[in-house]
């Protein structure tokens, strides 16, 4: 311990400009020891904690403190050490002083654990991405992935999944996602063979993201339907499973939307939006955008509260106006809105979906007409729908007849007189409909309760001894870190 203090003391005076936050290095060392104990005791939990702690430190990382940390953990002169140090920006002579400290005294770990080595890769990679040195980050991530393939330890999994994530991120930032697709597939295969669940989840998500980036919905769906599922984790509260699951749901929702399975898509998207952490604003906005369109396509009108969610009003504004146009059933207004916000829609890549909506606008307009008039001539229908076509009456007739067949309106056509006769709307309370709706709601509530019970976790021996004050503090601290981690992660990921 004295050694640590010495180094921390030594650093500030030698660096005038790039003086590292003195607290970072000791923190990093703490994390290293946490990983070490975790690796020896085979406790994955400790390693996840280490990753969480790292995320807190992320903003404070400096090249100098990283260099010092590498010297501390890795044997200087070893291959890994020299490779990793080469990624860090060159520092001046002062660093050498710091270097000499650990090399003079016996290095704390002679042969670093693979966990620590991987951790160093992760740290350097995060640092490089934060510094926007994407080319170095790409090189660094590629070497780390090559190294990862040779390590088969369950305690590495948590670190590996983070590495995969940043690996893909830095390629995405430079726009070369297609390059790594083959590699990701290979990694997914390896993870599956090793029963590395976290790795599988992360890689599956990355692959889906990769495909969807290029609009390859077909391939994405084929992969998704054949890859092992991980829905079983949906109940677990562990954050490392919830976030991948949210993403997975989002991608799934997108695929299903494109393939016109709107009911399933709506479910996935709404679930993703609900399960996503509060701090993940960008992600929730995306989910909501897609969910709104899907609901519109289903013929539902989302409630006003959806658009008024905190922090989303502005982003959802185009979709609000769109919904309004669909609600009124005004083709003209719909066209204007689609044109006005076409840049937003094309950057959201929802343009094609908006085109599909036209059909729903007509339907809604037709439904309004059918409710308000008991009998109306087809010429008036065409006028009210503002169909601009060479033969509006014939179009109106076939559109109405299709709507009747699809059950959108309840009416009959009279061809000889050229009018549409609406049928009396039946009394819904004379059918079984309300009972069915009531039943499905009760079932939902009961199911929710049961899932909550199942997700409860009981620490061993909790009934014997009361939680000591110290333990409680530790637990609370852990929860706090968790919350912070979520916030951190979502700031930059979505």
């Amino acid at each position: 311990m004295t050694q640590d203090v010495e180094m921390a003391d030594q650093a500030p005076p030698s660096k005038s400009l790039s003086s590292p936050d003195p607290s970072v290095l000791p923190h990093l060392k703490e994390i290293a020891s946490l990983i070490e104990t975790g690796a020896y005791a085979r406790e994955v939990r400790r390693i996840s904690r280490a990753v969480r702690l790292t995320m807190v430190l992320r903003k404070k990382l400096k090249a100098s403190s990283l260099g010092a940390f590498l010297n501390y953990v890795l044997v200087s002169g070893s291959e890994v050490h020299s490779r990793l140090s080469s990624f860090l920006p060159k520092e001046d002579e002062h660093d050498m002083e710091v270097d000499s400290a650990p090399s003079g005294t016996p290095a704390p770990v002679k042969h670093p654990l693979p966990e620590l080595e991987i951790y160093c890769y992760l740290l350097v990679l995060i640092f490089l991405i934060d510094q926007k040195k994407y080319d170095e980050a790409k090189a660094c991530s590629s070497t780390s992935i090559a190294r990862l393939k040779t390590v088969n330890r369950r305690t590495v999994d948590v670190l590996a999944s983070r590495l995969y994530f940043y690996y893909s991120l830095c390629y995405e930032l430079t726009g070369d996602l297609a390059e790594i697709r083959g590699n990701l597939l290979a990694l997914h295969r390896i993870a599956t063979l090793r029963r590395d669940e976290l790795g599988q989840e992360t890689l599956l998500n990355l692959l889906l993201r990769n495909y969807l980036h290029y609009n390859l919905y077909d391939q994405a769906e084929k992969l998704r339907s054949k890859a092992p599922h991980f829905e079983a984790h949906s109940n677990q509260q562990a954050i490392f499973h919830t976030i991948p699951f949210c993403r997975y749901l989002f991608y799934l929702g997108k695929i299903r939307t494109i393939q016109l399975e709107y009911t399933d898509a709506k479910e996935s998207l709404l679930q993703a939006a609900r399960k996503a952490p509060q701090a993940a604003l960008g992600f929730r906005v995306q989910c909501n955008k897609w969910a709104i369109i899907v609901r519109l396509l289903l013929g539902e009108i989302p409630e006003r509260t959806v658009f008024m969610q905190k922090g989303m009003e502005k982003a959802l504004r185009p979709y609000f106006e769109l919904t309004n146009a669909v609600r009124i059933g005004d083709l003209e207004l719909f066209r204007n809105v689609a044109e006005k916000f076409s840049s937003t829609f094309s950057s959201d890549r929802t343009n094609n979906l908006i085109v599909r909506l036209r059909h729903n606008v007509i339907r809604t307009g037709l439904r309004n007409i059918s409710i308000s008039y008991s009998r109306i001539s087809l010429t008036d229908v065409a006028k009210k729908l503002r169909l601009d076509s060479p033969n509006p009456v014939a179009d109106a007739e076939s559109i109405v007849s299709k709507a009747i067949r699809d059950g959108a309106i309840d009416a009959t056509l009279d061809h000889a007189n050229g009018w549409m006769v609406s049928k009396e709307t039946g009394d819904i309370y004379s059918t079984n409909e309300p009972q069915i709706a009531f039943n499905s709601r009760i079932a939902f509530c009961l199911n929710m309760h049961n899932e909550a019970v199942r997700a409860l976790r009981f620490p061993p021996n909790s009934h014997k001894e009361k939680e000591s004050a110290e333990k409680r503090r530790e637990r609370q601290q852990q929860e706090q870190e968790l919350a912070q981690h979520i916030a951190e992660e979502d700031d930059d990921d979505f």
Partner: protein
Amino acid sequence: MDPKITEVSQTFERFKAAFVRNDFDTCTRLLSQLKVLLTAFKSLPPLFQETSNAIHELTTARDIYEHAVVLSVKMEDQDAFERDFFQLKPYYTDARGRLPASPQEYPILGLNLLRLLVQNRIAEFHTELELLSQSALDNPCIKHAVELEQSFMEGAYHRVLSARQTVPDATYAYFMDLLAKTVRDEIAGCSDKAYDRLSTSDARQILLFSSDKELLQYVEKEHPEWEIKDGFIIFQKVKDSVPCKEIPSLQLITQTLSYARELERIV
């Protein structure tokens, strides 16, 4: 030059000659020869190796598959179309960066969209659509298919049929004919629900037949349940969604019991 390439281009020349003559037997025979020959090139998908004349080989292969697709349309073979199209697709997607764009690309993509529409594979239609860029969507061939789909979904069948006159390419006619058949079936299905009765002359117009005889044949074949009386077609109305008179007691009992069981567990 590589003897293999020479062989391919010679066979391809003979194929093209037969293609112009509309000699389909020779074409299919030569095409299968060509396909076998193409497997020998390492620069083609899925290997995509960087060989010295990769570009030339890729272009030739793309050309061959484009002809194969058009041939399948001419021979009115939808399965062959699908097979050949999937073989051609990597040249448009994965090799896009390396090859100069083919003038045939959009017509063929549009044809494929049309095929999916005819076969009523709307989900795949939209999946394909997502792959196209904005400039591709503005291309007349693609736009034609997209507008058809929209009119089809809306129910504006007249617009679908009048689109037949504006086909961007002669090869489209085959699928447009098939589409006309699909549209007629759709209209018949809709009329069945929407009208109580129709005079035969109106029905003839709506279903787009040129004579009453054709109409009667069609009704007999496709919709024997329609009744034809005094110059009117009378559609059989199935009275559905009658208000529920009886209480579904058994179902209610099981539901209530399950609520009771669940509540027991909670309390």
